[in-house]
């Protein structure tokens, strides 16, 4: 699993993450990712065959942190955050909508 991260891999991952990295950042990130992944490779020492993956603690505690019906709230209409207050914080808005640059590129 300790495949060395190449500059191309860093660029590809940055594209997936919608990050625009400068050339010097790509070089720096390659060095850092390889160092961190080298450390992470220790996990391969462990045989985890048959061990269930745990995404959050409720999975191992069962009912204590509940995912039961209690966690669902009643289906009632209740006040929500005011749309005007939300749109006020947007970089660009048009009364009811967030405004963004054109989506379709030609």
């Amino acid at each position, binding site marked *: 699993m300790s495949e060395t991260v190449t500059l191309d891999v860093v660029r590809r991952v940055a594209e997936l993450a919608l990050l625009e990295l400068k050339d010097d950042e790509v070089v720096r*990130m390659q060095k850092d990712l390889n160092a961190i992944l080298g450390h992470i490779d220790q996990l391969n020492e*462990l045989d985890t065959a048959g061990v269930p993956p745990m995404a959050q603690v409720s999975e191992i505690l069962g009912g204590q942190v509940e995912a039961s019906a209690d966690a669902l709230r009643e289906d009632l209409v209740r006040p929500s955050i005011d749309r005007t207050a939300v749109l006020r*914080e947007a*970089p660009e808005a048009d009364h009811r909508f967030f405004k963004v640059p054109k989506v379709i590129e030609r």
Partner: protein
Amino acid sequence: MNLETLSIDQTRAALTSGETTATALAEVHYARIAQKDGEINSYLSLAKDRALAQAAKIDALAKAGDPLPPLAGVPLGIKDVLTMVGSPATAGSKILEGYHPPYDCTAVAKLEAAGAVLLGKLNCDEFAMGSSNENSAYGPVHNPRALDRVPGGSSGGSAAAVAAGFCVASLGTDTGGSIRQPAAFCGVTGLLPTWGRVSRFGLIAFASSLDRIGPFTRNVKDAATLLGVMAGSDIMDATASHTPVNDYVAESQKPVAGLKIGVPEEYFGEGLDLEIRAAVEKSIADLKAAGCEIKKISLPHTRYAIPTYYVIATAEASSNLSRFDGVRFGLRDKSASTLTGMYRQTRDAGFGAEVKRRILLGTYALSAGYYDAYYKKAQQVRTLLTRDFLSAFADVDAIVTPMTPTPAFKLGEKTDDPVAMYLADVYTVAASLAGICGVSVPCGNTKEGLPIGVQILGRHFDEGMALRVAQAVENAQK
């Protein structure tokens, strides 16, 4: 009135007796911040209008002779990853510059409803990513106990503000140690509640399966008081537990004689500073003298906690931080002519190096071909780490460990080496992954005068027990 030692009880007593008013208390803290925070950089913004309006309400109650709520007039600082109407929420990042959230964080709202006066928002590592508070876009925080040292991270501003007398208590968040480690570095008490104990509504998420909100205080009893106010289910957060909220103050004040305390051998190995080892061993001896039975235990997967943490936390962060794209709040790079260009340029301009590093690492770990090798593997090791704790807690009531491998390090000392920086969390992340609760409590100072902390870990939802043992450690310091 000594602002550097004021507790919640003392604040309430001073208000009840008429010795001071909530307004005067808020003003005296603001004056101290104006005078001294220039060299510490703990506050990012002050919420004077909201704080003084709340103080006036408390003063009116006191004047009318009405009963005062439990946190009446207590000046608090809030980490800037938690939302408060009327104040900016930057999360220490340029990408949220100028953003004013239209809702209150549940924990913050509960504290204010209990009478607390919210003074303002505190500096932190960008999106709570860091162990030294050097990753804030608004400059590093300096440790009030030694200005050339870091305060710890990511809740460095929250720890420093309590240590410096800029508030009686504060709120921080802990994802991999971000309450407990800065508490140790600054010589205050920090409480990590069980995952799910305190609602996360209004917390700007870093890694949702790990993030928790908890208090920094001057003593263990104050931490118990604040937890009691904040804990409980919340209609706005389906992951906030319905487990009943206990009387944490009463539990924390019970004697400890007869309790079984586990000491894990894996936490006392190579890399532990000798002065820290001596102070923690002294605390263990104090617990023994108070009637506890000390048992050696083993948490065999401890050495895998850091690599597990950095896969899981970064994977979740890469997902959570995808919402920062320049559309709905904060920064937007307006030079781009296309939507994708705007996303990319906004994120490039808005995120700092550590956040980019973690987003890349998380995206890599989740990407096709690497998911099983990294993310699934880490989740399996997380199960093993949690089983270690569950098995230990079958035999002991609480676990005692060092809080940090070294005292507060110097600003800039580790900034060029991310792996060395990540290893500073060696004693904190296992408890984070397992979801258990813990308390960081001061247990001495180095010869240089730097604070030392000891960590008390408790079972899931047994904060009362962790606080009870922490109280015994604190009592032995007096």
